């Protein structure tokens, strides 16, 4: 493989495809692949981050109109992820790449949560007693769930904990140029008690904003190459659109096995790069 437009479009398309099937952004896969192709890690992070806006916004537009996305919750949580992402991206420009490889490998491991949660079923949160802040912020929602064939309504709790936790998600996303979707979904479900579909859709929506916040730092860093970033964006978006079309037709087990193999390979690659880089 060499660093050319066709290879980057194809690998990004594959990454976007796999990413949309498993509910992760393309960056998780694109960045290690770019790094294997010889792109310096910081540059891979900076170029991949901008393209996350495309993969996130493409699917977000559909989720928003289906009312799966909780816009008010997203706006409140974005205060925290935007701060986190700006700080995270700044840290990435300052620290040696060696440490970033290890941090990346460690964070890839958090993606296993995304696989595990596909198996879990969720309880509905009708009639939950809300705390004062969550109520003041009007954090509640309802949407029509096709698989359940009924309207699901829910109330969000513990906004005072969810906000600060999202700063950490934003920090990791900004540092590594990824969406940190699995981490965000975990916060939405475990702390804020959002139902799974609203949680995924809202996380996807917030990723676009976190990616913009990180990009505001990277765009000024002189690391963004228009041909590289453009190739990733075109490939990843085509891949994620194809993935979301095919999603209902592929078995969960096939996806999970495929993803596990890819993930473990990439984690090992990043650790190897970290050990051998000076």
């Amino acid at each position, binding site marked *: 493989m060499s660093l050319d*437009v066709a290879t980057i479009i194809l690998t990004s398309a594959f990454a976007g495809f796999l990413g949309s099937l498993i509910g992760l952004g393309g960056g998780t896969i694109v960045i290690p692949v770019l790094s294997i192709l010889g792109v310096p890690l910081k540059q891979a992070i900076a170029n991949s981050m901008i393209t996350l806006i495309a993969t996130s916004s*493409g699917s977000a*537009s559909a989720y928003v109109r289906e009312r799966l996305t909780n816009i008010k919750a997203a*706006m409140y949580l974005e*205060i925290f992820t935007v701060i986190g992402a700006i700080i995270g991206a700044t840290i990435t420009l300052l620290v040696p790449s060696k440490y970033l490889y290890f941090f990346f490998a460690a964070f890839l491991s958090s993606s296993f949560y995304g696989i595990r949660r596909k198996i879990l079923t969720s309880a509905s949160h009708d009639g939950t007693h809300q705390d004062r802040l969550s109520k003041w912020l009007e954090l509640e929602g309802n949407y029509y769930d096709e698989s359940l064939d009924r309207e699901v309504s829910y109330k969000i709790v513990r906004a005072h904990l969810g906000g600060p936790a999202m700063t950490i998600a934003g920090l990791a996303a900004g540092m590594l140029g990824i969406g940190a979707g699995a981490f965000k979904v975990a916060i939405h479900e475990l702390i804020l008690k959002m139902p799974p579909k609203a949680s995924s859709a809202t996380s996807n929506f917030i990723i*676009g904003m976190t990616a913009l916040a990180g990009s505001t730092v990277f765009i000024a860093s002189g690391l963004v*190459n228009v041909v590289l970033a453009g190739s990733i*964006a075109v490939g990843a978006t085509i891949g994620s659109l194809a993935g979301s079309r095919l999603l209902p037709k592929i078995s969960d087990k096939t996806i999970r096995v495929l993803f596990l193999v890819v993930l473990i390979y990439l984690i090992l690659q990043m650790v190897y790069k970290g050990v051998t880089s000076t």
Partner: protein
Amino acid sequence: MRRPTLEEVIGYILIIGVTTSLIIESAGLALYVVGKGAIEIDLSDPEAYVRSRDFFAYIIDVVSSVLGNPNYVDVMALGLVLLMLTPYLRVVASVVFFAFSRNYKYVVITLIVLAMLTVSLIAH
């Protein structure tokens, strides 16, 4: 006429922004491949890098280059600029929408997000 919901406004901003920027980026890539006669990405070519200290000044630069005598770098840069403007405009639209709905709590919340993004886009 019925006022559109926030969901509809944001949905349209996102899909129009992403589609437009992808069409422009694809055109830019085609110009690149045809112009260079090769598909290799040269990371050492200084021309291909975004140089933006102030994002809004950069937008004006890029747009005026594209309207003048565009090369592939300007076209690709325009695509990336539009991509970054997409979530930015969705925050702007939210501020306006919450102001119209007289939900001042959320006018403040969305203004905080908008202010942080704007400062980070200008001050580098």
